[in-house]
């Protein structure tokens, strides 16, 4: 008798264990039970925040996820182009917005989400970066970010410095910091892409002087060497040559993250995606890090250059478009956006209209950056306004940053470089 009880209960446990999901399916709350969505994203996107929301979606909506990792960089670009060409796209792709998306010809491959309810929540700047012929194909993966100056507030307090509104003020701050024996500017020249941020992040100031620069540049009529504001961007490098850390030629992005989060240097021109990572590595840095825009000439018009986030794109030919749409809809529920940001952090203000960042976000983002957004003093980076970007940009900015070439030479080199890109992209520049 006892034996049979044990046997029955064992059998019951085993049955339960083998089909745990179906047991709770009867209440009908899980409409996408049994659906598996294929996703494609890089490691920096498949982080704890994303995982938390995906787990919650599995719990509430039932769909499972299978994630393939994008190796990133040009290798990732080549993979996604090949998969587009061979009709082998995953259900949901996480990829850049702006010129890189345009290069994929989205209307051929991705689902038009213009008329979806969630699309009404996205702000116009973001929409312009995921649209082709006025149709929308992408939904923002995360928050915006900026190419700006991350700075160490205690140094500013110690020397009684003000957040600079103009480039001249910035340079004199650096001089004061140098005189006080500090490292005024961190340069992570070992990861050459980081040296571009001063130049690319200066786009607000370029457009402030010449609002049509981006269009004229795409048409091939405006040049960096001849446009006053654009040339000024390049000249800025020369002013900073004496202010760098001793290992500026070799330091990596991770070294910069460590140095800035511990106050070993005062300024760093970098993308603000670094802020959550700094805080994750050194939680006590949260109150000590601030962000300000790359300063221009006009103290009244200091504004921030913004990078739109990567976006989610749904495969047009997927068998699971409904589940994919449901997942994205779920992604933009306020509580789920909160969950993502509270888990991972935020790189900048959100591009969801009417959404405010939760209090868990660092003041550098929630206050410093948000202020520019509230005043409307933001402009997209040039790569969201034109398909042309010079292929050796980061080599030229490294040369300029290390003082090997002056601003005028760098601007001329970059013009030549862009011409090469434009010719190779078939834009017919002469």
């Amino acid at each position: 008798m006892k034996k049979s009880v044990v046997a029955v209960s064992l059998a019951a446990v085993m049955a339960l264990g083998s089909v745990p999901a179906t047991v709770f399916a009867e209440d009908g709350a899980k409409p996408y039970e049994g659906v598996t969505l294929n996703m494609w994203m890089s490691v920096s996107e498949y982080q704890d925040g994303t995982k938390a929301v995906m787990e919650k979606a599995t719990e509430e909506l039932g769909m499972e996820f299978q994630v393939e990792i994008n190796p990133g960089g040009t290798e990732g670009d080549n993979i996604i182009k090949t998969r587009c060409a061979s009709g082998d796209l995953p259900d949901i792709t996480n990829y850049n917005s702006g010129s890189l998306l345009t290069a994929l010809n989205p209307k051929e491959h991705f689902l038009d989400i213009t008329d979806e309810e969630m699309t009404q929540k996205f702000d116009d700047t973001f929409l312009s970066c995921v649209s082709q012929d006025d149709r929308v194909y992408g939904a923002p993966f995360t928050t915006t970010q900026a190419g700006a100056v991350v700075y160490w507030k205690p140094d500013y307090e110690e020397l009684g410095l003000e957040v600079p509104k103009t480039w001249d003020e910035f340079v004199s701050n650096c001089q004061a910091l140098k005189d006080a024996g500090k490292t005024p500017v961190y340069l992570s020249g070992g990861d050459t892409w980081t040296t571009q941020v001063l130049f690319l992040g200066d786009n607000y100031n370029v457009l402030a002087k010449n609002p049509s620069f981006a269009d004229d540049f795409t048409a091939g009529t405006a040049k960096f060497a001849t446009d006053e504001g654009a040339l000024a961007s390049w000249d800025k490098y020369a002013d900073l040559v004496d202010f760098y850390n001793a290992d500026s030629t070799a330091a990596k992005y991770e070294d910069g993250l460590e140095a800035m989060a511990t106050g070993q240097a005062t300024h760093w021109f970098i993308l603000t995606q670094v802020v959550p990572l700094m805080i994750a590595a050194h939680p006590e840095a949260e109150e000590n890090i601030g962000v300000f825009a790359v300063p221009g000439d006009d103290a009244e018009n200091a504004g921030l250059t913004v990078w739109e986030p990567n976006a989610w794109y749904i495969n047009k030919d997927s068998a699971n478009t409904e589940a994919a749409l449901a997942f994205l809809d779920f992604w933009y529920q306020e509580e789920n956006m909160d969950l993502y940001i509270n888990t991972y952090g935020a790189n900048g203000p959100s591009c969801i209209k009417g959404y405010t960042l939760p209090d868990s976000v660092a003041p550098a983002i929630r206050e410093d950056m948000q202020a520019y957004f509230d005043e409307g003093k933001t402009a997209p980076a040039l790569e969201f306004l034109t398909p042309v970007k010079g292929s050796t940009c980061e080599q030229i900015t490294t040369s300029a940053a290390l003082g090997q070439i002056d601003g005028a030479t760098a601007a001329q080199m970059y013009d030549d470089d862009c011409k090469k890109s434009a010719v190779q992209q078939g834009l017919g520049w002469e």
Partner: protein
Amino acid sequence: MKSKSKKSNLYSFWFVVPSLAIFCIFFLYPIVTSLYYSMTVWNFDSATFCGLDNYKMFFSENSLSSSIVHTLIYAFLTSGLKVVIAFFIAIFLTSKIRTKGFIRSCVFFPNLVSTMAVGLTFCALMHPTKGLFNVVLQAIGFSPINFLGDINLALYSVIATDVWKGLSISVVIYIAGVQSIDKTYYEAASIDGASAWQQLKSITLPLVAPSQNSIIILSLIGGLRTFDLIWAMTGGGPGFATDVMASVIYKEYAYGFYGLSTAGNVIMLVLISCIAFPLQHFLMKREEAIQ
């Protein structure tokens, strides 16, 4: 009679066909097609003919043309240094020393390590503040040297690493050459009262010429094609200071400029051919003259 000889000619021809077919399919055909694609703007789907524009761009744009100069400096300097230094090491290692076997292994050791590993190791050793070289320099009272960060120095730092790593092969070839020299020459010379230096100059050096020629050709072509060490140590930087042709071609390719990067490959092929064939010819002549 006549038809028979024709038949036998044709008969031998069939022996050549397999290798000729392989040569044509895998070497000749790609060379000819790459000549065509080097004159186009090409994105794999479509190729628009643009004449010699890609070539003009390669020679006129500073970042591309400077890579040609760097390649030549790199190739000639590494080759020259290897030829000279390896000769003296080989002489030393063929003399009557006790730990010959051990030292020969030591000299050969760098060649067993992958180039990437060598590059990354030296990159760490040459770090401007934390690298071992600079720590030692500072400890003995010198100011630190930015080996890979200084544009005037970076290329030479990589060249030095290449020589360190590539020396061993040259030494091995030299040793084989030196050992194959007949001992009777030395005996005759010493009976005639020739000094060690005279023996080295008048016997060893001329008779080692065949091995020396192989070393010159091998290391020069290796230098012209170099990529991995540059990529591991500097990635072509700082700025453009160490960009060689192979690294530039790789970058253009990665950026999707397939036509331009093919043009770079054609230029590299022509450059290597223009240097290697006349040099080979000259060295063969010299070798014959000695014999």
